[in-house]
């Protein structure tokens, strides 16, 4: 095969001055700029391009657009390998590599084409009736075989190296589709001053004009399209987006669109994404997405060389590539005849036209006479051939006689189906039009209008008029009163009406859904077995479920079902249309949010300093927090954490706790407000004091806890847990705005405004005296436990000091404006050097809280009550508060609830693990003996053993009981003693100092 053996000497919209090399299945070929991979394959005489899904039948190119079911390839290689790429829409670039798929060992010799031999058994749904015995063989044998045979192309084997973007756009009128209808609509709307976005999935605007020519406003349609585009480009209010497919429409006029920014290049240029996902917010939209020509179902209709008529003339006229030397046409409408004209104009031979209609126009007869081919009134009922193409074409003539046509290409036109998808995505069901034997849009989403071929108006003149009207009325609806200008005009030749032909019966497989190998007899079988609704038909036969989503098959399939069941087509109905209109890469849908940028990263004020210290960080929600600070010579995390705890308990250390949620509560009713959201009372809290507070959900379960301080009569400072910072703010705003609007109170989130550090240990005062202005009284009397005060730091910065303790040590929390956080840390380290100060991380923080029996995330799990946590006494009976009533329900006050206890292995050397369940001694582990589980553990340097907290049924009555910690997941089972959850300094003398 010589290169471009099937390229016409002249013509087409390709750039012959820019040849491009590419390979298909490793074989080098050339094409031109402006080619698609499919047109270049056609020009190189390639017929066989793929294998079908089930039977592995040899397949050729069927269409020239995004509806293609057959010509799917693996495009590119390595990490950029793209499975299932439609050759018909892939733009050719120099160096393109494509490989056929779903075949082994080669496209020509595909082992699984033996499936065709078993095809009498492999009918629709056959697998539901077999592979049941023996049961174990399904996963071991049958399914692996099926899985290996199924699937199409292969995903890449390495992460996608290209980048993707997302963008928003806003406009008054979105026009989807840049054919004659779309151009007319964009012109009409654009001239009024409305902001217009015009999208087309191709590189060039013009749609069918690029293939079909014709005259508009007395000039060649190509010239008209160029002029229209120039006018649109000159309008500042119009944005033109090529290579951009509108893929969906969502609520509120949000449209999704996929822009293929770099898919026409070997690799994306630097700083340029491969694709961009647009969210286009449009007040009105005009769907000018055209129509899709439907094949006719007849035996052998999948032989390579059978093509839709419009595709065949696209290859001939637009790409100057000849799918065949001698073509035949099988049509039921006048439009198909345009392919004959295109073929003749290109100097190709026409073997015959098989037209199902008895009435043939004089002009058509004249064409046939002039070119010397026969017009056969009848239908093609069989094509013979195989992977090398068409052998012969059998025709059943209207009178009952038969004819045979010798041709190497068969163009087929069964009429046109408007591209309904966009107009149907909000579940509006299309309506049937008998005159064109097609469904047209009905009840589209709000603000959307279909125009032109997408609305069932197929003639060029009709498209121009319809597009203009749709564009003009969309703009005038929105109040744009400037003139939409004059509509362009064309002359449509009178047409002989189409006569529907869905299925021509005959011997052999007649394909409805090419890719999924659904045949007419599969539909008959489906009907016979009761799968008669279109949804059952689809699901039983897989009709319309392939990568083309039934664009060429759905209507034919349901027409056959209608015929089999004796219903009309509209009675039979359509399946549901779902986005996206063209399959959309996962990369584009994810955009930049992948890898390390999957979610934002929040850094604490001391982060950079902690990094300098070599801290190990842990993810806490979006935060990175220092987990521990390893020192040279320490062999593992445990050694570091143990040192941190010991240092804090004997000297002094500090920890960044800025991640806590912080909320300023202002206003005369601030105290009353807090009384309603906390179970305990805050209105009585003295100014200058802090109090631990507990919030419930309205269902009575604990929501969150934290320390809240009263800074002034009308100003409280509330803290939340790190995890609940956002949700608590939302909840409090709900209480303030929705439930208690009568309270004069304001909330301000100040989580990011304050850097806050816990400074703990017996030497904390010694340290603070070096930091705080010497005038400040930090003595136990001058600054008692739970005291709060603003203080001056040496150097003049004002800070807030809270004498609160999570560690159980003598401790303060100090907060300064976030911008001073880093400086404060460095000052603490400097000032603390004589006292042996260390930073400690979240692990040490956690160890000390377990030693003190403080509850945290694992105990505040959304199913515990205040009583479960040992905090039931905090529940005020003197007021209403969120959750009070529901907290009184039977189950929430039942005596056998699981409550917080302390746990320690009886063997002091034993490690305790969270997630182990607690089983009474002497009992077998089973549901009835599963009395609780370990929630939090740590190695306690103070007790020199592993300890933990747990939730245990009737736990408070079981102090001293020895139980089994049962941990089958980790193969462990050991004895633990239930104890008081406060392991360290239960009297609290250390923190009170």
């Amino acid at each position, binding site marked *: 095969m010589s290169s471009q053996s099937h390229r016409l000497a002249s013509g087409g919209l390709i750039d012959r001055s820019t040849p491009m090399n590419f390979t298909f299945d490793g074989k080098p070929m050339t094409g031109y700029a402006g080619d698609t991979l499919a047109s270049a394959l056609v020009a190189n005489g390639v017929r066989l391009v793929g294998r079908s899904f089930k039977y592995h039948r040899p397949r050729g190119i069927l269409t020239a657009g995004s509806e293609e079911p057959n010509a799917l390839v693996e495009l590119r290689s390595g990490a950029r390998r793209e499975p299932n790429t439609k050759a018909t829409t892939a733009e050719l670039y120099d160096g393109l590599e494509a490989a056929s798929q779903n075949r082994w060992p080669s496209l020509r010799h595909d082992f699984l084409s033996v499936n065709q031999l078993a095809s009498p058994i492999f009918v629709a749904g056959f697998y539901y009736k077999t592979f049941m015995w023996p049961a174990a063989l399904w996963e071991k044998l049958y399914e692996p075989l099926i899985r290996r045979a199924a699937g199409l192309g292969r995903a890449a084997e390495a992460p996608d190296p290209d980048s993707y973007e997302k963008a928003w756009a806003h406009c008054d009128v979105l026009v989807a589709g840049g054919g004659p209808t779309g151009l007319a609509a964009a012109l009409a709307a654009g001239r009024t001053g409305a902001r217009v976005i015009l999208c087309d999935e191709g590189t060039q605007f013009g749609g069918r004009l690029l293939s079909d020519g014709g005259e508009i406003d007395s000039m060649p349609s190509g010239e008209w399209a160029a002029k229209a585009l120039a006018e649109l480009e000159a309008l500042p209010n119009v944005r033109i987006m090529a290579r951009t497919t509108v893929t969906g429409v969502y609520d509120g006029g949000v449209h999704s669109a996929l822009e293929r920014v770099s898919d026409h290049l070997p690799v994306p240029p630097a700083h340029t994404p491969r694709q961009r996902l647009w969210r286009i917010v449009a007040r009105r939209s005009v769907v000018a997405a055209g129509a899709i020509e439907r094949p006719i179902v007849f035996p052998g209709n999948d032989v390579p060389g059978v093509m839709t008529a419009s595709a065949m003339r696209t290859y001939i006229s637009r790409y100057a590539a000849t799918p065949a030397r001698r073509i035949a046409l099988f049509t039921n409408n006048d439009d198909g005849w345009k392919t004959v004209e295109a073929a003749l104009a290109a100097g190709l031979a026409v073997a015959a036209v098989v037209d199902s209609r008895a009435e043939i126009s004089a002009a058509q007869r004249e064409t046939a006479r002039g070119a010397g081919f026969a017009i056969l009134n009848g239908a093609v009922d069989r094509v013979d051939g195989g992977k090398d193409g068409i052998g012969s074409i059998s025709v059943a003539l209207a009178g009952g006689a038969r004819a045979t046509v010798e041709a190497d290409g068969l163009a087929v036109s069964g009429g046109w189906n408007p591209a309904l998808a966009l107009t149907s995505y909000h579940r509006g069901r299309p309506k049937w039009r008998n005159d064109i034997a097609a469904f047209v849009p009905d009840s589209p989403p709000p603000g959307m209008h279909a125009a032109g071929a997408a609305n069932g108006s197929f003639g060029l003149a009709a498209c121009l008029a319809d597009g203009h009207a749709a564009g003009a009325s969309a703009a005038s609806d929105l109040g744009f009163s400037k003139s939409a200008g004059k509509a362009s005009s064309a002359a449509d030749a009178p047409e002989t009406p189409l006569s529907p032909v869905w299925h021509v019966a005959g011997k052999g497989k007649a394909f409805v859904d090419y890719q999924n190998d659904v045949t007419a007899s599969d539909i008959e079988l489906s009907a016979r077995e009761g799968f008669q*609704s279109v949804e059952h038909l689809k699901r039983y036969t897989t009709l319309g479920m392939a990568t083309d989503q039934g664009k060429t098959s759905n209507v034919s399939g349901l027409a056959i079902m209608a015929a089999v069941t004796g219903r009309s087509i509209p009675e039979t109905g359509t399946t549901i249309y779902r986005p*996206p209109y063209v399959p959309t890469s996962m990369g584009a*849908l994810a955009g930049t949010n992948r890898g390390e940028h999957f*979610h934002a990263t929040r850094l604490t004020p001391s982060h950079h300093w902690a990094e300098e210290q070599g801290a190990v960080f842990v993810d806490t929600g979006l935060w990175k927090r220092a987990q521990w600070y390893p020192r040279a010579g320490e062999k593992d995390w445990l050694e570091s954490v143990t040192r941190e705890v010991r240092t804090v308990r004997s000297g002094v250390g500090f920890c960044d706790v800025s991640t806590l949620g912080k909320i300023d509560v202002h206003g005369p009713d601030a105290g009353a407000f807090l009384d309603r959201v906390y179970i305990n009372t805050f209105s009585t809290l003295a100014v200058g004091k802090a109090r631990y507070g507990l919030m419930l959900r*309205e*269902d009575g379960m604990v929501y969150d806890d934290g320390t809240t301080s009263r800074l002034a009569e009308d100003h409280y400072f509330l803290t939340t847990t790190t995890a609940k910072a956002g949700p608590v703010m939302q909840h409090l705003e709900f209480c303030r705005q929705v439930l208690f609007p009568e309270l004069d109170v304001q909330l301000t989130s100040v989580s990011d405004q304050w850097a806050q550090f816990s400074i703990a240990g017996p030497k904390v005062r010694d340290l603070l005296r070096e930091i705080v202005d010497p005038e400040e009284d930090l003595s136990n009397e001058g600054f008692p436990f739970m005291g709060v005060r603003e203080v001056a730091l040496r150097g003049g910065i004002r800070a807030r000091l809270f004498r609160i303790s999570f560690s159980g040590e003598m401790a303060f929390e100090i907060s300064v404006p976030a911008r001073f956080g880093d400086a404060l840390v460095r000052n603490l380290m400097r000032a603390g050097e004589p006292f042996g100060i260390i930073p400690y991380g979240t692990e040490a923080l956690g160890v000390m809280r377990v030693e003190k029996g403080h509850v945290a995330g*694992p105990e505040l799990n*959304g*199913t515990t009550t205040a009583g479960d946590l040992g905090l039931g006494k905090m529940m005020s009976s003197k007021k209403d508060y969120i959750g009070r009533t529901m907290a009184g329900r039977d189950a929430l006050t039942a005596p056998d609830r699981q409550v917080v206890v302390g746990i320690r292995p009886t063997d002091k050397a034993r490690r305790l693990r969270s997630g182990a369940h607690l089983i009474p001694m002497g009992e077998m582990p089973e549901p009835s003996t599963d009395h609780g589980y370990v929630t939090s553990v740590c190695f306690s340097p103070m007790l020199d053993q592993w300890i933990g907290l747990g939730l245990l049924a009737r736990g408070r009555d079981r102090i001293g009981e020895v139980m089994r910690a049962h941990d089958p997941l980790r193969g462990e089972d050991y004895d633990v003693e239930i104890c008081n959850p406060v392991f360290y300094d239960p009297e609290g003398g250390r923190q009170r100092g």
Partner: protein
Amino acid sequence: MKYSIFSLARAALNGHKNWPRTWRDAAPKKHYDVVIIGGGGHGLATAWFLASRYGIKNVAVLEKGWIGSGNAGRNTTIIRSNYMLPGNIGFYELSMKLWETMEQDLNYNTMVSQRGIVNLYHSDAQRDAYARRGNAMRINGIDAELLDQDGVRKMMPFLNFEHARFPIQGGLLQRRAGTARHDAVVWGYAHAADKLGVDIIQNCEVTGFTRDKAGKVIGVETSRGAIGAGKVGMSVAGSSSRVAAMAGLRLPIESHVLQAFVSEAIKPLIPGVVTFGAGHFYVSQSDKGGLVFGGDIDGYNSYAQRGNMPTMEDVCEGGMALMPIIGRVRLLRQWGGIMDMSMDGSPIIDRTPVEGLYLNAGWCYGGFKATPGAGLTFAHLLARDEPHEEAARYRLDRFRTGWTIDEKGMGAQPNLH
């Protein structure tokens, strides 16, 4: 005709011309012992269990559209029993055991495929929560394994272990979990129930309840006429509130949209089911080759069976974060179903305050895996008038008593479950 490779081969000889309907196209009779509203998986399974286990064969299943046209036909086909709390754990394991014998029980290949599920963890806290869960499963006799990072890497080397925002630390594995062919489950139960005499009546919408003087439900009004019933069971997830309202009931349920997605078919990549622990994404690969995936509900009340872009994007971001090799795999189709989101994330199988009316509802997004279990236990309730022991905690009054079953600990906020 019994389905087997032999009957299939015989049928091939005459071009499959003699296959009978998979289920009869029944017309409604005047009266049934039990009428089930809802021809989804649950309703049909209930009918089959009534007929096969409880000897009640005078049963009708009424479906307003086509059987399986609700959530049974639009889920992501996952089956598993990796629950944690008493009340759930035994029920879902009962259901899992019924999956394991379903094909032989029904003589229909529902493609139950136990290829395993891995719930990934990305932090110590998640690992501890999965340890608690896995141990609860083991104590209940259910298989569970805790994998470390290497264990996950061996099973799924294609996941993102490098440069991840939230690196994978390990996972909780249930090997017996997997997927089943959702439509086939519907058809299989229909086929088997029909053989036992159950009438499956499609295009028959219930428009009201017939009550006697005491208020007892004694039948239903339908678009195909009145049908008398000894008992009426509702299995209409997504529409539970609407149907219950016809009997004057308000339910602890909100209807929410859950989206699901499928990619183009590709050659086998993902062995079982994997759920991302640091984002809203879970995925399996169908036998056809499509990656079937989903994430969180959109979060607002909806009966529209379609969702919006933020959720779709969120799910795909999760997918790319977890599996960056699928960047060039294309999303083929997105769809949505209506979830009965209950107030504690767990279902309801119970009598209602209206005598004669029984409720199977509130399955949130987990109803598919429960299909056989819900069928058996709802049938038990209808037949015996007392709850099956494995569904005894799915009481309607548990919100009043407080014995809720809240696996996620989110409380009475349906869109957070």
